[in-house]
């Protein structure tokens, strides 16, 4: 009876792990301030790099400091109560505690600058962030998902100058294959080693 009970628990817990809830896909996160990418990116045309300014140069894309919000919100919508945490943070110097949307396990190494420099678009991994009112995770970020691209990057690579373009649409399957293969050569992407365990688990 006990083992059967345990099996039930196990089934449920594995089920949760594999379910959308477990991988947290599509679940919008509540934040201390209801920050909307849709409002800022689509509505105001602000580039990702205005706020995520280290995405081209470091492994970490960067979460904007309160000062970055203040470059605009020292003047815009200053009297709205929903901005209290921003003003409080600016006054005290204590950062706003944003809830993480993506969080890889600590035994996985990831690097933004490498992907961005080699023609992997933000929207390939994060979806249409410019349409999100509250930010959610679009893909599981599980190992199998990473490997789908690391095995066949030609299906996903786009020209470098399109990486930040949220509206970019890949051409049809055949054309993408040709484009991807050409870019892999041009950008000198070493496809053979992308499945080595040690590049992600180092």
């Amino acid at each position, binding site marked *: 009876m006990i083992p059967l009970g345990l099996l039930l628990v196990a089934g449920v817990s594995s089920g949760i792990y594999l379910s959308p809830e477990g991988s947290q896909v599509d679940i919008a996160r509540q934040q201390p301030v209801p920050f909307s990418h849709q409002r800022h990116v689509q509505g105001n045309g602000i580039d990702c790099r205005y706020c995520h300014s280290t995405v081209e140069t470091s492994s970490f894309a960067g979460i904007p400091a309160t000062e970055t919000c203040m*470059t605009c919100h020292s*003047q815009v919508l200053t009297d709205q109560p929903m901005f209290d945490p921003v003003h409080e943070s600016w006054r005290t110097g204590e950062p706003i505690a944003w809830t993480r949307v993506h969080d890889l396990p600590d035994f996985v190494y990831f690097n933004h600058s490498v992907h961005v420099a080699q023609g992997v678009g933000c929207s390939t991994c994060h979806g249409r962030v410019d349409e999100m009112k509250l930010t959610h995770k679009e893909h599981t970020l599980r190992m199998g998902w990473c490997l789908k691209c690391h095995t066949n990057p030609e299906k996903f690579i786009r020209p470098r100058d399109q990486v930040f373009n949220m509206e970019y649409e890949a051409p049809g399957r055949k054309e993408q294959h040709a484009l991807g293969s050409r870019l892999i050569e041009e950008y000198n992407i070493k496809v053979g080693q992308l499945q080595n365990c040690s590049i992600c688990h180092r």
Partner: protein
Amino acid sequence: MIRRNRLNATRRTVQQATRLAAGLALVGILGGCHWDMWDDARLKPYEKSDFFADGLSSRMVVPGTVPYLESRVDDHYYAGKIDGEFAKILPAQIELNGGLLKRGQDRFMVFCSPCHDAQGTGNGMVVQRGFPAPPSYHIDRLREVPIGYFYDVMTNGFGRMYSYATRIDPQDRWAIASYLRVLQLSQNATPDVLPADQLEAIKEHAHNPQEPAEDEGQTTNEH
């Protein structure tokens, strides 16, 4: 005896099944929750930490710290000034070429155009949503300021405009300052500053207004 054996066999099967179930359960439970190595003592950037009283894992720089290998004594490069006056020329580290201007344009579109707009007339999207309008770059006063002044505005801010020094490094600030000069030139240019072939292209375009001109000057990160 035979019956006894059969009974033993049945019991053994039940025992084995039980063990298998328990084993499966253990695997399932361990697979389902990750209290082991998913969150180890290594801290990622910005991760919360209980080690310091303020809950931050990274430390603020101690006041008075001098950057290693970068003492920033070169006033021309780091402050835009020569002998206390705004520099009229680029510092020696900056080479004026097409790459610098292209980089400047790219950074300008990311960090400045939200307020100053792509032409620099001061009517960007954020201004249309309520931010006080900046002056146009094409007024006489700003056309006459030394290039070091632009560098200084980005570095220290100006009036209601905040500093951009934490997000734009000195190299890129000089690239943007150089690009501001291009913008100013473009809005006040007379045809004789253009190379002959570009002039031809514009003339042709003027005769065929339906055909869009080759706009290689446009930025690559429009949304």
